[in-house]
């Protein structure tokens, strides 16, 4: 009786795509090893009833070498073997490397069904694998599939109940490779194909000079595209909706509002020159939705569109190769670039994905650097919206300061924390071109995730802030911190409330700065401080959960120290 189905395979063979196909649960899949660092589960209905399907992080062998692999292997061993089936997902274009895990699984006595995935790509590359022969040699069911289009998934489901435990002599790795060589020899036929343009590009992107040129071009155009798309959405879609449709509606509403008391203050906020100003009124119905939908959401859409594209094409591991020597100086290795890039979307998934790094030391350094030096999209969007009016130089300045902090802090942490930076070892996937539909689905999934998490917090946050302001409760906090903020950072005492709210959500905090009429310098310092001081509460908890209380406290102490030093320095240096 099957009670559980596990999906296991080498990194980047498409386990998450198969998982989505089997269960209908949408999970993020990309073209690089290590997309899945946690466990996703869903249900598949078979004739025996509903069975739980678990998508495990990728692993090369049953002897784990990273946190994510450890998670996969330990979960697999938790359940009685006769009550489960392992669907071993295999990359048909690279059968040889994948078979080691398959053989280990069979030797350990797991009932295995092999899913020969990416069969379309294999055919395209001139690789033919005979599933019937392979099944005959290994004595397990083998099903060719192309999960991204859904081909073969139905027969995969039918074969699940055919899986059985078989006994097989345990071999050493060396012996396994010899056997794998023989198996591949007899089931795989290769057709010679000429080098394609794609292969030329793949090659050029990991050579030193051409690679760095390509990396510069890709990063620059990605950044420009994110800004261009974000601004286009704001100018052509969201701003017209807010200003031409929503504001007249609210103004009609306020006409009937004779007494401008507590509720007016809470919902609409302050009128600026007798009118509602979405950036400054600070009401639950005015500024709160404008921040989320009018300023942040457009950039969430453009950022994740570009990031998803880079992920699915398979460019990111190449960037990791090129940046390895720089990141090595920071106590990390090249692959840490992926958690960092994800952190630009939101620090939480960034810190979660540090699980692909091997040691706790690396995870601590990476998480601290992300929470201090990597601004999330909501914060960046607000910085564009706020500092952008003083000129691009200020926006670029914020990035320059943050980038320098990452470098300097990384070098300090690397020399201060005992231990060494582990070595980089990474498989580089081929370039792939994702179907538009797959890209759109992934974008939809990420944007939805953002809305579910952000919108309630922002609405409640703005409400709480308004209550605090209305009853003048902020005065207690501001009175306490005023000397530090005023003397060291040169900020007015009203900015303190915003910095405190930064702990809740960065975008709301910048929203609170908007009505204060700060100078360019003050805004610049506040923006930097908001980025580097306490991460928002969600990031705070994820560091706690992932790395423990002690690391969280250490990380927090570093943040406070850096904020004071950088804030004071900037105040002294800029005129």
């Amino acid at each position, binding site marked *: 009786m099957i009670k559980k189905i596990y999906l296991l395979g080498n990194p980047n063979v498409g386990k998450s795509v198969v998982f989505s196909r089997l269960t209908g649960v949408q999970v993020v899949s990309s073209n690089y090893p290590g997309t899945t660092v946690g466990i996703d589960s869903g249900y598949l209905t078979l004739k025996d009833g509903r069975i739980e399907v678990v998508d495990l992080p990728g692993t*090369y*062998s049953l*002897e784990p*070498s990273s946190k994510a692999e450890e998670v996969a292997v330990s979960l697999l061993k938790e359940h009685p073997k006769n009550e489960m089936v392992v669907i071993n997902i295999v990359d048909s*274009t*690279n059968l*040889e*490397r994948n078979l*080691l*895990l398959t053989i280990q699984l069979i030797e350990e006595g797991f009932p295995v069904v092999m899913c020969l995935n990416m069969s379309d790509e294999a055919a395209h590359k001139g*690789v033919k694998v005979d599933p019937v022969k392979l099944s005959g040699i290994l004595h397990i069911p083998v099903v060719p599939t192309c999960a991204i289009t859904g081909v073969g998934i139905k027969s995969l489901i039918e074969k699940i109940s055919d899986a059985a435990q078989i006994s097989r002599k345990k071999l050493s*790795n*060396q012996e396994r*490779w010899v056997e794998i060589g023989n198996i591949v020899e007899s089931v795989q036929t290769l057709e010679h194909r000429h080098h394609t343009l794609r292969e030329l590009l*793949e*090659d050029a992107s*990991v*050579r*030193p000079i051409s*690679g760095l040129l390509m990396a510069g071009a890709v990063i620059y155009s990605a950044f420009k595209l994110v800004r261009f798309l974000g601004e286009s959405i704001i100018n052509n879609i969201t701003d017209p909706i807010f200003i031409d449709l929503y504001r007249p509606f609210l103004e009609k509403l306020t006409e009937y509002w004779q007494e401008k008391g507590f509720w007016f203050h809470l919902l609409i906020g302050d009128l600026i020159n007798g009118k509602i100003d979405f950036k400054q009124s600070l009401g639950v119905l005015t500024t709160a939705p404008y921040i989320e939908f009018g300023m942040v959401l457009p950039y969430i859409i453009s950022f994740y569109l570009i990031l998803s594209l880079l992920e699915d094409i398979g460019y990111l*591991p190449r960037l*990791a*190769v*090129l940046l*390895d*020597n720089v990141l*090595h100086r920071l106590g990390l*290795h*090249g692959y840490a670039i992926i958690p960092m890039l994800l952190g630009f979307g939101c620090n939480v998934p960034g810190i979660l994905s540090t699980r692909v790094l091997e040691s706790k030391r690396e995870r601590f350094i990476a998480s601290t650097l992300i929470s201090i030096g990597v601004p999330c999209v909501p914060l960046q969007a607000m910085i564009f919206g706020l500092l952008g009016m003083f000129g691009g130089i200020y926006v670029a300045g914020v990035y320059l300061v943050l980038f320098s902090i990452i470098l300097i802090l990384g070098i300090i942490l690397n020399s201060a924390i005992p231990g060494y930076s582990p*070595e*980089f*070892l*990474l*498989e*580089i996937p*081929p370039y792939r071109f994702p179907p538009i539909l797959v890209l759109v689905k992934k974008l939809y999934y990420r944007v939805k995730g953002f809305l579910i998490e952000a919108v309630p917090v922002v609405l409640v946050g703005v409400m709480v802030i308004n209550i605090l302001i209305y009853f003048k409760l902020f005065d207690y906090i501001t009175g306490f911190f005023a000397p530090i903020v005023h003397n060291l950072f040169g900020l007015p005492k009203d900015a303190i409330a915003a910095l405190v709210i930064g702990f809740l959500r960065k975008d709301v905090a910048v929203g609170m700065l908007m009505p204060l009429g700060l100078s360019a310098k003050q805004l610049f310092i506040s923006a930097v401080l908001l980025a580097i001081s306490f991460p928002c509460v969600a990031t705070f908890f994820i560091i706690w959960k992932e790395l423990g209380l002690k690391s969280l406290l250490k990380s927090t102490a570093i943040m406070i120290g850096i904020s004071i030093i950088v804030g004071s320095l900037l105040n002294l240096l800029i005129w």
Partner: protein
Amino acid sequence: MKSDHKGKIIEVLGGSNLETKLESMGLYKGKEITKLSHIGLRGPVVIKAGRSILALGHGVAAKVIVSSE
């Protein structure tokens, strides 16, 4: 070993841990590999082994002893 040259892995130095890890990724003794490139300033070495392209950090690459053809 120079870029675009082929060779066979003879030995992996530096303990059985690294050896097992490389083995599980398909870099076992006797495997034929092609070096594709090397990023300067102690950067990684990119190689092709079978149908996989792998990047090895400088320290790892230094421990993989290859007989060049």
